């Protein structure tokens, strides 16, 4: 008898809750909320998930009841304590509906506020779904869901660009000291402060008279600022393109430290090592009607081969038989030189004096850049030495005296002839 009452009570319980015998069993008493040990609700969509600091935007979270039984009295709730640094501007707990049937989904919307000073990264919205397994709301369950959102920098807010990089002088050669000017522009929509522009100066470059870190106190949106570095290039530096790393550290509008880095190239040009090694004039003394050779020896003391080498001589129209000779390639190295010859044929009518010949060496360097260098060579045209050992002045004087004597004699004969005729 003593156990009869208990037996009747069990039978009665089974009769009153015929369906619950098939549902997941719980040790909880009616009215208590138990964390579900199975997944009845899953997130099937959340949009948007990309946020910028200081954003206030709505996020729609779609949740599906993946279980084969309905959920009753469903509501969603966000625990603000666990959500930090994310903030929500409306009700944290939202009622969804009386019954969410099996495989049915619902969407819940929250207004999210991302604080200004939030660092970029992934943050989670802690969403708790509460429901009852019984229509009368007796056995309650909850499931904790996490929705990940990505907080990135707003490109419209923080953007600093190196809009122009120039060097003074424009062309840099080994051994040069030059100024490197970097023009920065705040392309973002907010002010940035305490900008530090660091240039990574490595050998063969070195910084002279200025720091490799330059500071700008602040830059308003759209404002430009220039940083200048004084740099010396080693004399032995080979000609090539050198890479410089450039880092910008600054504080954004919310006083967060930001960093931006990039790189650019500086081209060190080949120092012109082509020169005229020797000029030989044969014969060494030129006179009107002289013939001979003008030999120009061109050497390449650079580190690279030079091509399309042409030697042109200007200003020698009355002296030379040709004005341009083609050499071709001259390889680098101390012993490598080429000699080109120009025929000399001095105009018989040429004026005596010094003639300036402009000797130009034209060539293409290793970068394919056309280069030219010129040198003045002075060729002296002297009077042809007379076969008679008398100076020109004396000869002229003798000629004038002879002419005068001949003319005087002629006059005398004519005068005598006139007198004779009159007689």
């Amino acid at each position, binding site marked *: 008898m003593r156990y009869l009452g208990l037996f009747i009570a069990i039978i009665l319980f089974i009769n009153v809750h015929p369906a619950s015998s098939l549902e997941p069993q719980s040790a909880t008493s009616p009215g208590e909320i138990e964390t579900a040990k199975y997944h009845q609700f899953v997130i099937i969509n959340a949009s948007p998930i990309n946020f910028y600091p200081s954003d206030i935007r709505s996020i729609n979270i779609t949740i599906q009841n993946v279980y084969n039984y309905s959920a009753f009295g469903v509501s969603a709730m966000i625990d603000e304590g666990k959500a930090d640094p994310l903030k929500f501007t409306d009700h944290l707990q939202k009622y969804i509906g009386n019954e969410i049937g099996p495989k049915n989904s619902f969407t819940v919307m929250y207004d999210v506020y991302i604080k200004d000073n939030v660092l970029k990264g992934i943050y989670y919205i802690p969403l708790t779904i509460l429901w009852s397994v019984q229509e009368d709301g007796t056995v309650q369950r909850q499931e904790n869901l996490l929705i990940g959102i990505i907080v990135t920098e707003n490109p419209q807010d923080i953007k600093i660009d190196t809009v122009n990089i120039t060097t003074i002088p424009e062309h840099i050669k080994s051994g040069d000291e030059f100024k490197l000017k970097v023009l920065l522009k705040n392309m973002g929509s907010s002010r940035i402060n305490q900008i530090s522009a660091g240039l990574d100066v490595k050998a063969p470059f070195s910084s002279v008279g200025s720091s490799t870190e330059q500071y700008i106190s602040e830059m308003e949106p759209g404002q430009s600022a220039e940083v200048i570095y004084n740099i010396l290039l080693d004399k032995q530096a080979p000609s090539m393109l050198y890479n410089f790393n450039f880092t910008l550290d600054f504080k954004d509008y919310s006083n967060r430290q930001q960093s931006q880095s990039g790189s650019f190239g500086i081209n060190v040009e080949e120092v012109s090592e082509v020169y005229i090694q020797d000029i030989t004039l044969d014969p060494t003394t030129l006179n009107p009607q002289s013939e001979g050779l003008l030999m120009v020896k061109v050497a390449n003391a650079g580190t690279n081969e030079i091509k399309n080498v042409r030697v042109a001589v200007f*200003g020698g129209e009355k002296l030379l038989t040709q004005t341009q000779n083609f050499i071709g390639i001259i390889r680098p190295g101390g012993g490598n030189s080429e000699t080109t010859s120009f025929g000399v044929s001095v105009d018989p009518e040429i004026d005596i004096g010094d003639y*300036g010949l402009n000797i130009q060496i034209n060539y293409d360097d290793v970068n394919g850049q056309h280069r030219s260098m010129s040198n003045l060579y002075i060729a002296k045209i002297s009077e042809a030495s007379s076969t008679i050992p008398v100076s020109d002045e004396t000869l002229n*004087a003798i000629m004038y005296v002879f002419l005068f004597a001949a*003319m005087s004699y002629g006059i005398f004969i004519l005068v*005598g002839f*006139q*007198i004779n005729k009159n007689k």
Partner: protein
Amino acid sequence: MAQNKKSISIIIIILYLILLVPYIIASNAGESGIVIESQKMDIKSLPNDMQDLLIYKNYSYNIILIEDPATNVNKLEGKIAKERKVVLSKETQEKGSFVRIDDITTDIFVTSYNLIDQPFEKLVIGDINKAGFGVVIETINNYIEQLNRLILSDVFSLSEIITVSKVDFYGGGLLVILVLTIFSRKVVALWNIPAIAAIYSFQIFLVVIVSFVNKIYVDETTLAFAFLFLLALPLAFWLQRYEETEDGTKKIYGLYLKNNEILSKIKHKFGM
């Protein structure tokens, strides 16, 4: 009639003397010419090899283009032009001035450098100064320019005046003597001989004066010849009067016969 001849003779002599002046001044100023263009110049803008020619590299230089009205140059294809020179000078002169170049350190024929955007034949480095009596050339040049503006043409030029003056320098003296002789009803006269010497000596005397003013060296022979007219001119006057006299005519005729005699002997000796 005699009065007319005298007047014409005086006019011819004056014309001859006036025409002498431009050529003597223009051709005896050394490296000289009329300033055509003048600019201040930054030495560093010159090609390196040109900079090397400058002795005083810290001075400020002027680049001056001048045209020598008395010197012709043979250009290519048989063309002749007046010689143009580029002068690099610490001093400068106004356009149209007739200048000479002193203290020349470089004087070379150069055609292949573009220094002043105009062609030139010579590069001279020195100090540019006003040439002695240069005002005469400048005045003539101004008159020519005014005349050309008046007739809206470039028919006349200074170089043509200089050419006429040059012809006068070489042939004008002989022409004057010939005209004066013809006026004395003769084709030639014995006084012509010292007169020719006197007239050319006087021309050289003028050349020497201009050269001295322009500090140009004159050798001793030229200097001696320049003063020969002081002897030759009185001799010409004396001879002109002497050969008009009967005694003079007789003596000249005697000399003429003696000359013929010597010539005959020479001919005979050589079997002619």
